[in-house]
């Protein structure tokens, strides 16, 4: 076969940049943020010690770390609750947003009927709707989940809808020429073309899900039954347990970073072979 004769040329074509430069890049990616972190903690610790700041105003970094370990039992339970709500909201929004987006692009009538209400739901601040939801939905956890879902749903819906519509017209012509069915056009053309948009929505949605879970729990706070991280943070504030408040805050940030990292990774893995956003610029 002719393929064999020219196979080496094909292999050459994908030659990677040198290992050394890749490693340098990776090490820098880790080392630079770490140096900044160490500096930050150092200055923080020095400031608290040098000026004798009281722990209920600003606890030192080591006291916060100590609290994190000491209160791990309470905090980890709360962390799990928050993560569960965030992830469930994100998954529900992924399924719901994607399905509704597909429905919207299949029928103009459905789009005209539903899209304006999705927008209304989105532009009304969730803090303002939360009290109502807490009244109507008796179970606090379910109410918080619903709030997080509403906030997460929209970016995924609108991005995916946009993506499903942004198909190269020539490719649409080609599919028509070859007699593709609606279903084939959806599966082989529209859904793959929508991927970059979908993943942009996923990244936004992931961050918003956590924020909404926390905001909704703040709103529910006095309702009592909450036991997520946001509730623990409020509770620490009432009891002036500031080291624990900081510990909770750090866990929340860490969760947000991990969600961002995971959604970015998913996006990278899905798009790396073909989409400009995932390609390293070769120089």
């Amino acid at each position, binding site marked *: *076969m002719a393929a064999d004769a*020219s*196979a080496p040329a094909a292999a050459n074509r994908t030659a990677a940049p040198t290992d050394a430069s890749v490693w340098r890049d990776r090490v820098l990616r880790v080392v630079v943020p770490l140096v900044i972190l160490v500096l930050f903690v150092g200055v923080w610790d020095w400031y608290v010690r040098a000026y004798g700041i009281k722990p209920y105003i600003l606890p030192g970094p080591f006291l916060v770390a100590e609290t994190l370990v000491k209160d791990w039992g309470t905090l980890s339970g709360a962390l799990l609750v928050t993560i569960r709500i965030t992830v469930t909201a994100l998954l529900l929004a992924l399924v719901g947003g994607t399905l509704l987006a597909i429905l919207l692009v299949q029928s103009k009538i459905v789009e005209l009927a539903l899209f304006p209400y999705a927008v209304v739901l989105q532009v009304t601040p969730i803090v303002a709707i939360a009290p109502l939801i807490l009244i109507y939905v008796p179970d606090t956890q379910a109410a918080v989940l619903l709030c997080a879902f509403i906030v997460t749903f929209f970016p995924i819906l609108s991005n995916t809808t946009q993506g499903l519509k942004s198909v190269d017209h*020539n490719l649409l*012509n080609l599919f028509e*020429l*070859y007699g593709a069915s609606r279903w084939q056009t959806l599966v*082989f053309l529209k859904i793959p073309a929508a991927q970059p948009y979908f993943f942009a929505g996923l990244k936004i949605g992931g961050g918003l899900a956590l924020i909404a879970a926390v905001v909704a729990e703040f709103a529910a706070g006095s309702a009592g039954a909450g036991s997520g991280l946001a509730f623990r943070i409020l509770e620490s504030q009432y009891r002036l347990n500031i080291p624990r408040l900081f510990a909770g805050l750090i866990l929340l940030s860490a969760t947000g970073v991990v969600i961002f990292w995971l959604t970015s990774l998913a996006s990278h893995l899905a798009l790396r072979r073909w989409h400009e956003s995932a390609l390293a610029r070769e120089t």
Partner: protein
Amino acid sequence: MSSSSSAAAPHSPVVRLEGVTKSFANGTLALDRLTLDVAPGEFLSLLGPSGCGKSTALRIIAGLSHPTSGRVDWPSAGEGAGAHARSIGFVFQEPTLMPWATVFNNVWLPLRLKGRSKASVRDAVMDALERVGLAAFADAYPRELSGGMKMRVSLARALVTRPKLLLMDEPFAALDEITRFKLNNDILKLQAELGWTVVFVTHSVFESVYLSSRIVVMAARPGRVFDEIAVPVPRPRNESFRTSPDYVALCREASDALTRAMQAAGREVA
């Protein structure tokens, strides 16, 4: 001219446009009573200035657009054959590849849409890729290919269904001259091998003379047939044809016709 009643006669055209008129909603008269027979095995070029309705005519033949009035007949296709049964290949001005799919999967597409599995078409797809010299790049993604290579993939995709009629809309207009010459030769070679009937849209006089057995010169506003030039030079043609006196004379003839077509359009506007 053979009557259209003898549907399967050996010399009945592959497709016949009869008084095809196309006006768009904005009032543009893109085609005005276009009548055109495409004979089996011929290489027909539509040559004309931009805006004279070449693309519109091609899209109407492909069934992607419908005439406002007039008829498109397929005398040799049999009664009631659907657009897809007519076995048309279409090559657009852009390669129009799916960026998320490998070269192999892009070429597989037309067969995949007919429900053929990857395993069952492997040989057909690899054969198509070999014909355009890209068998080694089956697993590459479009972004890894040059403009000329992408166009070859597009060609492979058009030929994998073994179409009787190949429609090409300025396929090489965006390529550099060296690449274009190469692809011109490839097209001639493939036509000889596969027995295509080709309708080729171009605004290049040289390209149309080099490739065609017949050139239809079109004028704009409204789009219509202005002149017709036969290119009775036998095949195979190669680089020596490009430098022959015949070629130069035919280019002059086509160029003159094109100039007159453009003046005709200009007068009507003025």
